[in-house]
């Protein structure tokens, strides 16, 4: 009974934000001091609630609240390591984003509305991660995108703002439908919406392959793909800087995670399917490549960050597809903090540029040096792996992520080696590379331990998955090699032409634009500016 009370008390956090959203109906305007005061206190309290929930889960493990449902479909809170992990992350980021908005939006004659909508969005994400029942999960899923929609249209008169919101609306509704389909199938099969009962149902009859579970898993995968703006539905995400910076930060660090979170939440279902992982691997892998290449061709800070987010979402879902959920969640959480900071500090770009008036050592692009650096990166990594006692080769899926780390370190070391900068730079880079590898092993282990009970253990992947795994690895590796040799290629004509195609997002966006009649969207007068116009 006491634990039940604990569990329910976590609801304080979303409730506080709901209260802010309601208050904002009455304190809509300029410099809403009282609303700001309430929001400030609430975001502190939310962090405390998150801390408490961490302690509770550490103490008691999985906790479920009493269920308020109709035929087992309805509302319950589920506290486990996965939900608490993401819940804490959301609350930390909400704190930062809220705090940022107090001064940033100062002087806007609808600051109250802004804070209210921000709070509503935060509350819906919190409810999503706390959901213990499919019914609540779906409702929160829909709510996140509806509340986000209202934030995207904060300056609702702006033509490009409407356009982005319209594209997002289409992707989000499709995603809602897919998830609804999956939920109907699961509910039909198990006769309950309770997640725990579904999971234990699956565990007790692991090999009872059922087409409805197969389809449900595929639908979940598609819902996640749409929610996280994977190629080719990514267009809206790179356009949402039509709304103030804190929204971008919250979106990229919070809401976008809903896709990978859903897949991890339903990982026991996903595991029973053969098609769902393949969907994730194909879409995720391609988007990871597409996004990270397109990122390099963008000239505007926020737009580039948008492409970067797409690629990281793709990568997270790719890892989910390979069945390495712990690595996927580590990536997700790390990416959130990284991206929140990147957006909020995007105004510092000029400072960075000013500091770079120092010439770089000449690049030599000497193949031998580059090969040495790849070998060095590999040595550092495998040496540490040996010391740490892990064997990436044995755990095939872990091999993927390990290879990627080695690739990254090769580029880091390669850039330093391939220059006339001297020994000091090299030793510093090697030290950093070692630190990065160490951080990776410890965090990976930590995340695996934390999430152990909530995700399936890494298992032998199917043949199809294994083939795909090697396919992507070869492509990834090839791309990294090309980049190491890029200084020699960059003035080639064909190279330039491809950069134009990638800068235009391989035209997926143009087609989406045509689909939604982008040319016919008009600027309108209402709420397009931060000031009350005189006439």
């Amino acid at each position, binding site marked *: 009974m006491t634990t039940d009370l604990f569990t329910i008390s976590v609801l304080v956090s979303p409730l506080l934000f709901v209260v802010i959203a309601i208050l904002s109906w009455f304190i809509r305007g*300029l*410099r809403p001091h009282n609303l700001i005061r309430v929001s400030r206190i609430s975001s502190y309290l939310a962090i405390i609630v998150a801390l408490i929930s961490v302690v509770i889960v550490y103490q008691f493990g999985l906790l479920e609240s009493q269920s308020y449902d109709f035929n087992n479909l309805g509302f319950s809170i589920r506290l486990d390591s996965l939900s608490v992990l993401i819940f804490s992350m959301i609350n*930390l980021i909400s704190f*930062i984003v809220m705090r940022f908005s107090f*001064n*940033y*939006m100062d*002087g*806007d004659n609808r600051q109250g509305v802004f804070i209210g909508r921000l709070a509503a969005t935060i509350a819906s994400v919190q409810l999503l991660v706390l959901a213990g029942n499919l019914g609540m999960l779906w409702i929160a899923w829909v709510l996140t995108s509806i509340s986000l929609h209202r934030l995207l249209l904060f300056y609702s008169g*702006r*033509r*490009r703002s409407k356009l982005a919101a319209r594209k997002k609306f289409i992707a989000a509704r499709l995603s809602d439908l897919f998830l609804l389909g999956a939920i109907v199938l699961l509910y039909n099969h198990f006769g309950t919406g309770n997640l725990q009962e579904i999971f234990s149902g699956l565990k007790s009859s692991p090999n009872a392959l059922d087409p409805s579970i197969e389809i449900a898993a595929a639908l979940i995968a598609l819902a996640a793909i749409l929610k996280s703006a994977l190629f080719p539905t990514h267009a809206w995400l790179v356009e949402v*800087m039509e709304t103030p910076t804190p929204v971008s930060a919250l979106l990229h660090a919070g809401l976008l995670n809903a896709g990978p979170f859903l897949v991890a939440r339903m990982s026991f279902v996903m595991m029973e399917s053969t098609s769902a992982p393949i969907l994730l691997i194909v879409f995720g892998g391609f988007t990871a490549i597409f996004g*990270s290449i397109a*990122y*390099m*061709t*963008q*000239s*505007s800070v*926020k737009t580039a960050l948008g492409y970067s987010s797409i690629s*990281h979402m793709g990568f997270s879902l790719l890892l989910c597809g390979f069945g390495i959920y712990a690595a996927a969640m580590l990536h997700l*959480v*790390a990416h959130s*903090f*990284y991206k929140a*900071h990147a957006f909020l*500090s*995007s*105004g*510092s*770009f*000029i*400072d*960075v540029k000013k*500091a770079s*008036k*120092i010439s770089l050592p000449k690049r030599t692009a000497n193949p031998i040096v580059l090969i040495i650096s790849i070998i060095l990166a590999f040595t550092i990594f495998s040496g540490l792996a040996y010391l740490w006692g892990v064997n990436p080769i044995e755990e095939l899926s872990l091999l993927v992520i390990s290879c*990627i780390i080695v690739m*990254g370190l090769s580029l*880091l070391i390669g*850039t330093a080696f391939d220059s006339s900068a001297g020994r*000091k*730079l090299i030793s510093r880079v090697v030290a*950093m590379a070692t630190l990065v590898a160490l951080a990776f092993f410890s965090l990976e282990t930590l995340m695996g331990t934390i999430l152990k009970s909530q995700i399936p253990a890494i298992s032998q992947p199917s043949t199809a998955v294994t083939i795909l795994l090697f396919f992507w690895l070869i492509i990834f590796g090839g791309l*990294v090699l090309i*980049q190491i040799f890029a200084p020699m290629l*960059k*003035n080639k004509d064909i190279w*330039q*032409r491809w950069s134009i195609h990638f800068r*235009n997002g391989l*035209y997926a966006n143009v087609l989406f634009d045509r689909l939604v009649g*982008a*040319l*016919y*969207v008009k600027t309108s007068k209402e709420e397009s500016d*931060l000031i009350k116009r*005189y*006439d």
Partner: protein
Amino acid sequence: MSNSINTSEIIFTNEKMAQALHTAAKKIAPLWPLENFVAVNPYLGLSGHSFESIARQLSFQAGIQTTMPRDYYLKAIQENKLLLEDIEIVLAKNKTIEYDDAPSFIRDLKSKDFEKVKTPKVNTVAEVARKISSANWPDFMLDCISSWASSYFDQAQSQWKKDKHQLSLFSAWKIEAETNRSPSLMGLKGFHQLITELPDNPTEAAKIAIDSLGLDEEALPIYLHSLLLRVGGWSSYIAHFDWDSNRYGREEELVSEFLSILVCWEYGIFNALKNPVLESQWKIAKEEMIKKGFSEGSNSAISDLLILQEAYDLSAQRKLTGKFKVKVQSNQENIKCKVQAVFCIDVRSEVYRRNLESVAPEFETLGFAGFFGFPINFVKVGHDDGYDQCPALIPSGYKVLEKIDDQNQNEKVILRRKLNRAFSFAWKSFKSSAITSFGFVSPVGLSLLPKLFTDSFGITRPVPHPQHNGLSKKEIENLSVDIESRQNGGQITGIPLADRVNMAKGALQAMSLTNNFARMIMIVGHGSTSVNNPHASGLDCGACAGQSGEANAKVASVILNDKEVRRQLAIDNIFIPDTTYFLACLHDTTTDEVSLFNTDLVPDSHQEDLENIKQRIRQAGKSARAERVLRMSMEGDGDIDSFVRSRSNDWSQIRPEWGLAGCSSFVVAPRTITRGLNLEGRSFLHSYNWKDDKGFAVLEAIMTAPMIVTSWINLQYYASTVDNKHFGSGNKTLHNVTSGVGVLEGFAGDLRSGLPMQSIYDGVNYQHEPLRLSVVINAPKEAMIQMLEKHDSVRELCDNRWIFLMAMNDEGEVTDIYDGELKWKKLNVEEGIFERNEKLIEELV
């Protein structure tokens, strides 16, 4: 009957085309990148015409507004900032409009439709196409051009691009247009094909395009200028390259090349969408361009607004000149001046100077352009190249390196900075290259969680301070300037002795400081403090081209303390006593703190003076902050000092300070005349004593340099206020830094120029009132007329009412206002003023 245009009649030669492109290009004012955001008069290429005619022209061609909306002025009447009497004066002057009195004018005003002002009458092909199909081709074209231009001019963001500017503007664009499939996919069938077939030479391509569009000689200039105004941001950015080429004597014209690109786009749209309706509508559009010329002044809405604006200017001038009538008792009389402090003419200095003088009667302050007459290119320690630190009007003369006096230490710092740079480059490649970024995020991303919190609470900066990066606190304090003239790795750095003497002499004369030197003379440059602010350099010293004035102050004081320089100055009858010491300082306009540099070099004999200065600047800072904070929305009555300081290191702060918002007058006079007057931080103050100015060389210098620069700043604020959409940078919360040079408002659209809305507007009121600069000079009227006769460009500004020139007599009263055609008109502040009729005003507004 065919609607197609008979092109054989209107064929331009290539020379004529080039000339037409050049003429249009010259009308575009330059825009500097954000790292040295210099204030520029956005009407720069147009100031040869009257303010009123340009207002009409801009509205006609691009829907640009040059006045505030009607209701703004009505509110000003209510607040007594705009007097009915002044409206009547303007009405009386204006012969084309017949109103008996101000009330009937205002009553009539309220019945008119003012939306027209924002709709351009000139339509481009893209706009004609939009009218026909309601498809937004103009914005599509703008987005494509903007996206390409950001990539072409990108200096910092994207990693996948060619080496800097390998291809000319036009050839690079042509490759883009031939490759990019977006236009075709969006419905401009065969667009890339059409462009491929055009010649590679920009002028020839433009010629073919114009022939195809069938523009004649009369419409062409209007059309070309209008096209540039459609992409005003990028045009201006490109114009700054032309400006700089010009400044350093190179021949280059990129704007006309860019204009060729715009013309080719129009050609592409026209031919891709070609249909009879488009052709006939385009024919009508071309006729409109010349038929409804702006000269006729038929748009009565604009005329009315211009009347209101002029009256608004008049009322503000009354208030300003009224201030000078009041004689203020100076607290300085009979006190011997112990410290002289030279500040920048910047309006923010006025507040600090007044507060300093009021707490310290023994201080005398002077105003002078904040580069102190030393046009340097300043290279930070370890950097390869530097920034020009002088007004954008003149070329920088000397490369000066920053250094740490201890040679060993200096080399260590350079090595450390180079290493940091190389490391951060490698780290950045790891972090942001394709695929490897995944390897970065997983292990490193979590480290940003604590940083989110420390940045949020202002404990750390989001990125290291560009100036202090890699330096310890001690090293920062020991930074000085290296003016020794020498050959330094292929380039000449430092300033030769003869030039030092010349510059010192020029500077002292120009600031009217050639005798009566105090024991301590502070040379106070200024800079600002803000974090995460793309427009930060716009808050720094404008006279130093958007940099902090620290380096110039250091150079000035090193040279003026130099014994050899002083000896040679004495030959020219400038005797600086041995007991005089020049001290370099920096006024932080955000926090009103003044830092003193290299104080360890101050001789023992001056230690007492130094202590006194330290104490005085603390007191002055406190009271200046208390005054400035009134303009900030400070909640409750907390600690002002910490409130101000926390704003300066808050990464979410969009108004760290108000910059030059409010600037509306430029007073050139000895400080004795203005000391004690509260000019509310709205006046640029230049010290000038005409009696010491033989041959009026200094007056000439003031009227051709600081007066131009102050009008640039004033008109930048003016334009950003009256039309933020075209000449401002919009909403700061949507800013998206692009190419490392400017901002977009949101995802796409044109590069934005000018100031963000948040820098002029506080949410309730405009902190900048759009007023044209009133220049008040204490000098003989004939001397000023001589200068106008001599300098056409200055005369243009005054004759065409871009600035108002006023004469002040030796008693400090403003007596005359320049009335055009080299004539003065007597001024009388009280003339024609009646008692305010509250009832009438209430009825009217």
